[in-house]
C-alpha cells in the first residue's frame, strides 16, 4: 500500500450541539480515486471541509499530508486543489479565464509576492490540460456551466496539488457536460497520479471510474470497491425510499431535496 495522504482515526466533526460526522476511520493512500456518496445531510461536505483544515475534529484525529488537520497551514492547503460546490456566479463578475486560473497560484506564492511569468505559464498549462487555454482572455461569466467548471478545475490544477478535492462538480450541469467533466477528472487522475476525493450524488456517473467508494450517513456506512458498496441491501439502508433500482446495472437516486 502506498503512503497514506489522508487518514481519519475515529474522527468526529460537528458544531456545538450538532454532530455532522461521527467516528470516521478512513485511510486514503496517495494516487487513489475515491468517490464519496451519501444522501443529503450525510456529512459529505463536512468531510470535505475537514480535509481542507477548515474544521477541527471534536474527537479523534485527522491527518492530511502528514499534518494534523487543525495545524494545516496555508502552504499545506496550497497542495489541496479544491473545487467547491457550484455556486451562483455573477455573470458580470469582472474576471477573465486566465485571471481565474491564476488565482490557483496565489496560495503557493504567499503574501506580497507578485505572480511571475512562470506562474502565468503554469496557469496557462493548467488551462490547456482542461482544454480551455484558447478561452483564456474570455470573461468567465460568458462561458457555459461546464466550461466554468473546467476553468475552476484548472484553477485547482494551477496549485500543482497533491490532492484534488471535488465537491459535487457535476451539479447543475447538463448530461453532456457532466460526462465531460467526470471524464476530465478521471483523465487528470490517471495522467497526474493525483489523489482525487470526489463528492457526488451521481452514483451512475462515477461507479465505473473510482477505485473506491465511501458511503456516508453521518457515520462511515460502507467503503470499498464500487461493486462491494453498491449493493441493494446496503444502499436501501442508507437511501431508503429515495433509491430506485431499475436493473442490475443501473441505480437511480431521486434527488428531490438536492439544490
Amino acid at each position: 500500500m502506498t503512503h497514506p495522504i489522508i487518514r481519519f482515526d475515529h474522527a468526529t466533526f460537528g458544531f456545538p450541539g450538532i454532530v455532522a460526522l461521527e467516528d470516521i476511520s478512513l485511510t486514503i493512500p496517495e494516487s487513489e480515486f475515491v468517490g464519496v456518496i451519501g444522501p443529503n445531510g450525510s456529512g459529505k461536505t463536512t468531510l470535505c471541509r475537514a480535509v481542507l483544515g477548515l474544521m477541527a475534529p471534536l474527537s479523534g484525529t485527522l491527518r492530511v499530508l502528514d499534518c494534523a488537520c487543525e495545524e494545516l497551514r496555508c502552504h499545506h492547503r496550497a497542495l489541496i486543489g479544491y473545487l467547491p460546490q457550484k455556486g451562483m456566479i455573477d455573470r458580470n463578475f469582472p474576471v477573465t479565464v486566465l485571471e481565474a486560473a491564476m488565482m490557483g497560484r496565489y496560495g503557493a506564492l504567499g503574501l506580497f509576492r507578485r505572480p511571475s511569468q512562470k506562474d502565468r505559464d503554469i496557469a496557462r498549462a493548467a488551462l490547456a490540460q482542461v482544454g480551455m487555454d484558447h478561452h483564456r482572455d474570455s470573461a468567465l461569466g460568458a462561458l457555459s456551466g461546464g466550461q466554468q467548471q473546467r476553468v475552476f478545475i484548472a484553477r485547482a490544477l494551477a496549485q500543482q496539488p497533491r490532492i484534488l478535492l471535488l465537491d459535487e462538480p457535476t451539479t447543475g450541469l447538463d448530461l453532456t457536460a457532466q460526462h465531460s467533466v467526470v471524464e476530465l477528472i478521471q483523465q487528470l487522475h490517471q495522467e497526474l497520479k493525483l489523489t482525487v476525493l470526489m463528492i457526488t450524488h451521481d452514483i451512475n456517473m462515477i461507479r465505473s471510474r473510482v477505485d473506491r467508494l465511501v458511503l456516508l450517513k453521518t457515520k462511515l456506512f460502507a467503503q470499498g470497491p464500487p461493486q462491494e458498496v453498491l449493493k441493494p441491501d446496503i444502499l436501501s439502508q442508507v437511501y431508503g425510499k429515495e433509491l430506485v433500482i431499475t436493473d442490475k446495472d443501473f441505480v437511480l437516486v431521486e434527488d428531490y431535496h438536492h439544490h
Partner: protein
Amino acid sequence: MVRARDAVDSVIARTHSQITRSPHTIMLELLAYDFMQRSLLAAALVGAVCSVIGVFVVLRGLAFAGAGTAHAAFAGVTLAYLLGFPPLSLAIVFGLATVWITGWVEEKGRMKLDVSIGILYTATMALAILFLGLMKTYNPEVYGYLFGSVLSVTTEELMTIGGLSVVVLGTILLLSKELYFIAFDQEMAAASGVPARQIFYLLLTLVALTVVIALKTVGAILVFAMILIPASTAYQLTHSLTQMTLYSMLIGIFCAVSGVLLSYAFDLPSGPSIVLLATGLFFLAVCCSPKRLHRIQPT
C-alpha cells in the same frame, strides 16, 4: 478653518465679478490660491483611495458595510468634539469597531449582514445625534464632517489624508491578489492556502480608514457614494479585474477634481457636486455598458 472659509467667500465674490473672463484665465487664477491647491489635491487623493477600495467593496458585497462605517465614524467625530479630542482619532476608533463587529457577525453567520449593519448604522447615527444634542451649542465644524467641506481642508488635514492614502493604497498594492481572490470567493481562497480570514478583516480595516480619509472632504453622508459609484461604474465597463481597478481610480479622481472645480465655478456645495457628477457617469456607463451591448452568449 475660519481663514479658509474667508478665502472661499472672497474667491466666490471675485468670481461673480469676473464672469466675463475666460474659463482658462479663471482656472489659472484659481490654481494660484493655496486653499484651492489643497482642495484639489485632497479631492484627487480621496477620489483615488475611495474608488480603489470601492472595487473590493463592490465585488465582495460590502456595500452597506461602508455606509454603516461612515455614520459610525461621524459618531466618533461628534464624541471627539464633545470631549475635546482630535476628531479623526475617534472617527477611526468608531469606524474600525463597526467594521470589525460587522465582519465578526458575518463570519459567525449569526444573522444576515444587512441586518447587523442596519442595527450598527442606526445605533451609531443615534449616538451621533445624542452627542450633538449634548453639545448644547451649534458647532459648524462638526457639520462640516457630515456634509463635507473640501474647500476648507487645512494643510494638517491634507497631510493626514495623504499619509492615510499612502497606507491604504500601499496595502492594496501589496495584497491586491489576495484581496481579489477573497472578493471572488472567500471560501475558495481559504481552501487554496490564502489567509482569507485575515485578509477579509484587513479589507474591512481599509474600508474604515478610507471613510476617515474622505470624511472631511465629502462628508459622512456622501463618502460612501465615492466608494461605491466609481467602482460600480467601472464594473459596467470591463471583464477584467485589473482594468476595473484602473478605470475605477480614473473615474474617482476625475469626478472628485471636476466636482471641486464645478462647485467653485457654479457656487455649489462641493460634496454633492462630486457625487452627482459620479452618479451621472454611472448611469451613462449603465446605458453604454459593453457588457450589455455585446453580451457574449455561453458557448
